[in-house]
């Protein structure tokens, strides 16, 4: 059982968290033409990196979304940052 860090509530049990998506993915502007491939990539293509990953998670009790960097191989949690304010 992993311990994740919510930027607001601190270290908590992994069961309190929900994975949202990989970080860095941008929703295509659907008011413009989006190709089938482009949309399919957005929906389905995951980097699924072995090693360091950046992901968007939500902490269900406080319901805040944040970015967590962790290692998908060693399960080490590297850091969590709030998405409030300038998001990198």
């Amino acid at each position: 059982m992993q311990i994740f860090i919510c930027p607001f509530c601190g270290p908590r049990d992994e069961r309190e968290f929900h994975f949202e998506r990989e970080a860095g993915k941008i929703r295509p502007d659907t008011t413009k033409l989006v190709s089938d491939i482009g949309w399919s990539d957005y929906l389905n293509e995951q980097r699924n990196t072995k090693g360091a990953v950046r992901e968007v998670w939500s902490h269900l009790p406080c319901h805040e979304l944040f970015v967590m960097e962790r290692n998908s191989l060693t399960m080490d949690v590297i850091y969590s940052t709030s998405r409030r304010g300038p998001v990198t």
Partner: protein
Amino acid sequence: MTSYRIDHGGLIDRTRPLVFTFDGRSYTGFDGDTLASALLANGVRIMGRSFKYHRPRGPWSAWVDDPNAIMNVKLNGREFPNCAATTTYLEDGMAARSVNAFPSAQFDVKGGLDLMHRWLTAGFYYKTFMWPNWHLFEPVIRKMAGLGEISRDVFEDYVSDQVHDCCDTLVIGGGGTGLAAAREAVETGENVILVDDQKTVGGGLFRTGLIEGQAAADWVEAQVAAIESGGGRVMRATTAFGIHDHKLVGLAEHGKFGCPPRLWRLRPGRIILASGALDRPITFANNDRPGVMSLDGACEFLARYGVLVGRNIATLSNNSGAESSARTLEQAGANVVTLDPTAGHACAIGGKRLRGVELNGAFHYADTILCSGGQTPLVHLWRHAGGKLDWNDDLQAFVPGKAPEGMIAVGSANGFFDLQHALDDARAVGADTARPNKKSSYKLTPLWPKPGSKGRQWIDFQHDVTIKDVELAARENYVSVEHLKRYTTLGMASDQGKTSNMSGLAAMAAVLDRPIPEVGTTTFRPPFVPQPLALYAGQRKATLFSPLKRLKLEPEHRAADAALVEYGGWLRPGWFGSGDPTEHIFNEVQLVRETAGIFDASPLGKIEILGPDAEAFVNFAFYNTIATLKPGHVRYGFLLNERGIVMDDGVVARLGDNRFVISCSSGHVDHVRDHLEVWRQDCNDPERIFVHDTTQHWSTVTVTGPRARDILEKIDTRIELAADAFPHMTVREGTFDGAPIRVARVSFTGELSFEVSIRNTYATALWNALLKSGASIGAGPVGSEAMMILRAEKGYIIVGKDTDGLTMPHDLGFTVPRLKKKAAFIGDRSLHMQVGNETDRRALVGLEVDTGSAMLSTGAHIVADGSKPRTLGYVTSSYDSPTLKRPIALGLLEQGAERIGEKITVWHLGKTVTATVCPPCFYDPEGVHLDA
């Protein structure tokens, strides 16, 4: 009798005899015995039959590594399967039964299967039972396979406690090194827990002589006293069964037989692994015979239980550790002949009763053969935690290599087999000082299975895997250890290969002529020993798993004799009145159609969206255009997920420029709130939108029926109720008894309806006022079951019941936004992917049965006629309609819209009926009642 109890020694309490039975015969053991030691003390050696060949089997060893003696054990009327006789402590009155044997382990009618062994090789089932169809043979094979028999009784009180804890240092294993390390750690001021899976800590120490000048029992007692007086905790009969992510250690603390173990979820600062090592088997012909045992196991039986496993013992050992063991057994009264198995081909002679061993053609008389093929460190937990293994050529074993964070291995688990050296090292580790560097005196000659050698040589005792099966697997190219394991089932029995894995992979290495480390090990996974599922489940059952949501008006409903039923997590009135529910439900439907019903709709979603970007956000969240909705108006719509699938439906009420209320389905509120919250923060500016779920703070009472207005009019709401002033699909705010209320004219029944929402604190007064007002015209409360029928008559769907994981909004007849909505919305692009454009999509339809036919079954398949039947869709809702006096149904049907008027075939549980496809609205299709 070959094995017997000697008159002294052991950790048993000889003043407390315990009576038990095995395969129907009565025996006596002592307090402190295990089932296996007590049976051996009574001269019983055959304790089970093997899985495939039904060969007679006796215990191989004395603790968790024994694969053979598995029993069904009954005590106080409760029977438990798969109890290892070597780890089940004896209790008075136990009735043990051998498994996979009938009528007894000693004489088993299926013993003859062994004669067929030539044809029962690895993969035999897959190869033999292919034609014409595996499923023909499966029932018989399943009946023959398997070990224990599970009791059909449900033990409601078999519920594990679960405890969360932490400590500075966890020491796993209460043998010499574990005790030494724990004591040092305690003395440096650390909060220490030491766990050991036996009732008496000390590990293998009792089979050695003096330890640092003290008798084993005295030395152990001194260490335990020092640990406990320093504030450390010693947990006995507690198995560390797994190390999970981020160093979470699972401990199972065992009590008396039949009691559920207690789960400890422990988070230690560091872990000292002192789990010890196992004596591994030697692979030779007929090495599975009862009486062929582990040398360490035999010494353990002697040291802990005072049981000598044989009178005339031959030892087969390739290592320096065996000599002192042989001497110990001799001192206890056995005749011991020491043989060197590295010298050539060995074969056990005898059947149920051993007669001796043949080594290089020379016969040696023996009733017991004790093997020691070298020590295998117990590295299971090390691997769970992600530690690496190194191959040690001197020890011919995998030993802990690169350590996982915060973990360190000591003693035999680390490949340190010299006791004094291991103790010094463990003390340094416990105190966190530099570890001494010493050379080991342990010596062994490599000895591994020899492919191609004569005789049936067992590798996995429990699953009957021989060296020939490994050779066969290699010939058929299952050379990876993971494939070997699955193809031959080597290491897949309940002992999970504790004895067999090393021999198995060494055999594969020999067949392939590759070094053992290149072949590698299979993955070690928790649990280290089998654990009951109840351990993991704990108290999380029923409402402790999924707490019920309760209505503010529940006391009123109970007083009105409501039948309370769970719907989507809420405890709600299904109908009112006791006795036959059907009649009550029919009457409630009629009441709504003819007069009016009063319905507690409080679980209905009331999610407010506020802020300067609220309009754009709701417009983005909904399939339908919401931006054009004017304040005071209500619109029905769908929420889609990004794949264009209908996630929920509901109405949106606009209360002001920057304020909306989403009334999503009662059972979907939590999901919708989470969904909106994520999109708010992820694709929008969260500073300009606020999602506020008021569902559980406000109650909603719906008054529905042709006379709904009459009921509401008698209550002072300060709202003009006339149809032209307050038309269908609008919302008004007013007051009740000084409290703000919100009234929406939306309908889930097809009748004139007012949904009145009010803060929970005022809900009871409102409910009673409406009931009182309704009573004067004959209206009364109605429950959820009536609502289900009313909405189906009108063709209103329930998302998740009348839709599935493939349903898009245009399948439900809502085609316009897909083609016309300009603004972006969740799931928009997915509606135009190939899947959304398919012409054979399943669409919502109504289904009518022939006059006089029974109602269709929900879930029944709509099938295509013809030579190749195919499912075209299925019935999603089906009711006997009290209004129309005939059955009605809704369904999802391929090309449903084009099939209106067609006769179709409906299949359910082997029976077919015909039905006619019709539009999905059976009542008031023109909406006259709605707009009243």
